[in-house]
């Protein structure tokens, strides 16, 4: 069998590590592989969104019952029934979308096999 002539070399991880560790004077961060720009923005955006949701929901469910009902902060929160209804509705919507996606992919596969026959 004739050798096809290329070989896959994905950048020896040991050499990447060595260049990273050996350049401590030159500034470590500039040599070590890092995430690309949009990846960092998207990732930190996800972290920020999850922190916002967590703090708002914690304040809603856990802190609000212990605050005097005449306080002004109650204006910023919906009635407590929504604290369960909104996540429940969101979960059901998620299940719906997952089911629709699976249906779509299965129908597309069936059509492909029918065309191939």
């Amino acid at each position, binding site marked *: 069998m004739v050798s*096809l*002539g*290329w070989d*896959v*070399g*994905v*950048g020896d991880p040991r050499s*990447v590590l060595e260049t990273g560790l050996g350049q401590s004077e030159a500034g470590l961060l500039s040599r*070590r*592989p*890092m*995430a*690309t720009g949009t*990846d*960092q923005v*998207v*990732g*930190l*955006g*996800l*972290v920020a*969104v*999850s*922190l916002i*949701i*967590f703090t708002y*929901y*914690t304040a809603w*469910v*856990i802190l*609000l*019952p*212990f605050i005097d009902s005449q306080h002004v902060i109650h204006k910023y929160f919906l009635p*407590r029934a929504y*604290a*369960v209804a909104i*996540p*429940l509705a969101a*979960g059901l919507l998620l299940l719906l979308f997952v089911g629709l996606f699976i249906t779509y992919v299965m129908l597309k596969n069936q059509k492909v096999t029918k065309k191939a026959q």
Partner: protein
Amino acid sequence: MTKLAQWLWAPALLGSAWAALTLGALDLPSSCREGLWPLPTYLLVSNGCFALATVGYCVATFHDCEDAARELQSQIQEARADLSRRGMRF
């Protein structure tokens, strides 16, 4: 005890404790009771937030090797050209 048994026992225990307290087994002050009944939903939502934050953090700190990626892509192109020249269809 198997893992499945553990995973069934712990939620059953916690769930029955929550149900008992919500339906009035102990005399809790009304503010405590107000904070208690949405607790399962609260745990689910905070678990989801934690998962989302972990995914976001890992995406933001992923170690990209752009040179290696470009080299790999060019090798893939080379391989496709070579194989299609020898008659393989993609």
